[in-house]
């Protein structure tokens, strides 16, 4: 069995200082390379909180998160940013492209942030990813000029541009109509296979969950069930 990408050990998360509310109660979890995992559960079960912890966007109250074998507990904000840029890709529910930039520039942005300036090959790499998601002809469109589905596909390309081993997606199809949602999901599956990237997808959609390799169900801040889909 392959070395796990991410390991969570007894992770809890509480909010509030006077009235402390524990959202996550001791989560233990391993995510394997190239695994396509669905995270489902009712609203308020802690899915997004867990995702933010995994994405190093937030810190756990207790417990440890190991990313590629490395403990992330003591890292500074900047170190976490660096790890994020290198090892993680994000696809958010509301696509979250930078509206000031074109589709191409949005895809290039993680490379620019990591290297500090445009270097040779970045543009070509971003363009080939846009081609892969079928939006090469929209490369020079402002993000705001794209449809919701197109924006979400650009966000997928952006998440993949640094070839992270893990992409976290928070309701990537939640904001789209059925047809666009289906297209985006197909794209996620396709790039997961082609780029050998692990995906962790938070979703409400049963049909989407049913087509993932693994389904984690969360209820009340705990992982209720962890099933592997035989079909995949």
């Amino acid at each position, binding site marked *: 069995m392959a070395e796990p990408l991410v390991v969570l050990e007894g992770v809890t998360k509480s909010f509030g200082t006077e009235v402390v509310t524990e959202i996550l109660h001791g989560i233990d979890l391993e995510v394997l390379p190239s695994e396509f995992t669905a995270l489902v559960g009712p609203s308020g079960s802690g899915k997004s909180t867990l995702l933010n912890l995994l994405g190093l966007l937030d810190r756990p109250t207790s417990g440890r998160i190991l990313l590629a074998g490395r403990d992330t507990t003591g890292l500074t904000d*900047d170190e976490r940013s660096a790890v994020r840029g290198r090892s993680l890709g994000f696809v*958010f529910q509301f696509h979250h492209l930078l509206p000031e930039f074109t589709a191409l520039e949005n895809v290039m942005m993680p490379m620019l942030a990591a290297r500090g300036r445009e270097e040779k090959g970045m543009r070509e790499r971003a363009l080939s990813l846009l081609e892969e998601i079928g939006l090469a002809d929209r490369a020079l469109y402002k993000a705001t000029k794209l449809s919701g589905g197109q924006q979400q596909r650009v966000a997928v390309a952006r998440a993949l541009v640094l070839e992270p081993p893990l992409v976290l997606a928070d309701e990537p199809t939640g904001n789209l109509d059925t047809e666009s949602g289906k297209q985006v999901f197909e794209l996620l599956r396709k790039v997961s296979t082609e780029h050998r990237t692990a995906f962790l997808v938070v979703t409400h959609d049963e049909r989407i969950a049913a087509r993932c390799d693994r389904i984690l169900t969360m209820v009340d801040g705990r992982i209720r069930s962890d099933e592997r889909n035989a079909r995949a």
Partner: protein
Amino acid sequence: MPFEVLVALRFLREGKIQTILILSGIGVGVAVIVFLSALIGGLQESLIERTLGTQAHIVVRAPEDLVRPVTESSPGLAVAPRVERPAQRLRSIVGWPQTLELLLTLPRVRAASPTVAGAAFALRGLANRSVALRGIEPSSFRRIIDMGPRMTAGEFRVDATNAVIGVELAADLGVSVGDKVRLETPAGRSEVFLVAGVFDVGNKDLNARWVFVSLRAAQTLLDLAGGISTIELKVAEIFDAERVAEEIVARTGLQADSWMKLNQQLLTGLRSQSASSWMIQFFVVVAVALGIASVLVVSVVQKSREIGILKAMGTRTVQVVRIFLVQGAVLGLGGSLLGSALGAGLSFFFASLARNPDGTATFPVNLTPALFLGAAAIATVTGLLAAVAPAERAASLDPGDVIRYG
């Protein structure tokens, strides 16, 4: 282009109205600074030019005669109950050629000219006027006060028995170029001179009193054979004059008066003018800084979602800080370019409003490259500093919060 600059410029470009408004604000501020500096600088320069155009920067003369009273009695000596100040007679500077040479070696002294000055009467027929006789050496004196452009008739020639007088005196005596004038000193010596030229220095009193003759003629008339009464100096930097004068006093033991000492009121006027100008400029800079800071603070709030995204994609805190610092600097620089153009335009417009009869501007403006560079530097640094607080605020945004609630 560095990543931070790319993002900063794009943020500014996409925030069209805000950017245009704040650029205009900075522009107006910088225009005020440029205009005010140009105007005050120009006014001061013309004021100084008018004052120092007919005046040496430093006048060196022999020390005054002093009495040394006996204040302590001792056998055989009487103590003076009252000390009378001696009448000052015209005296030569002892060893003046050496002194002149010494003065010319001082680093800040640009020119020095020996002169003989004394009182005399100008006589013609029944008319007589008391005048200030100035014996000069034309070649070196030209570098102290250039009389050439101030001549209204004839030329500035003071050799042999040629004299140059002012327009008022010429009118009083009814003489013009080529006529003869007798100069007589209180001691009774007199000499006839030929009027070689008539000048107008723009000061009625000086036009009525100054009579230029050769050094030798003045020495003879004033009974100062071979001697000189004053050395007139020009220094490289006019506001150094007082310090140079003090240095001369210390090194030669002679008396040295700078234009600053002789024109105390002018100096006070110039200083308070400068002070008020600085004050206005300081408050303009403060207003510009507050404007930039407030626009950037608003921008941080507006862009918090974008900042969160940038951070989620691996942008480091220091990069976020730089994005906002660059915005501040670019706003400052851009605004200063706009303001420099506006200020220059305003200055020229103002200068063209009122003109002297001779075509020069009544309100001279002094636009120098240094002024523009200074304004640009101040505005850029101000922008940079004003951006510090908003940048810190942007850097402290938590990407998790922004993405969760954004």
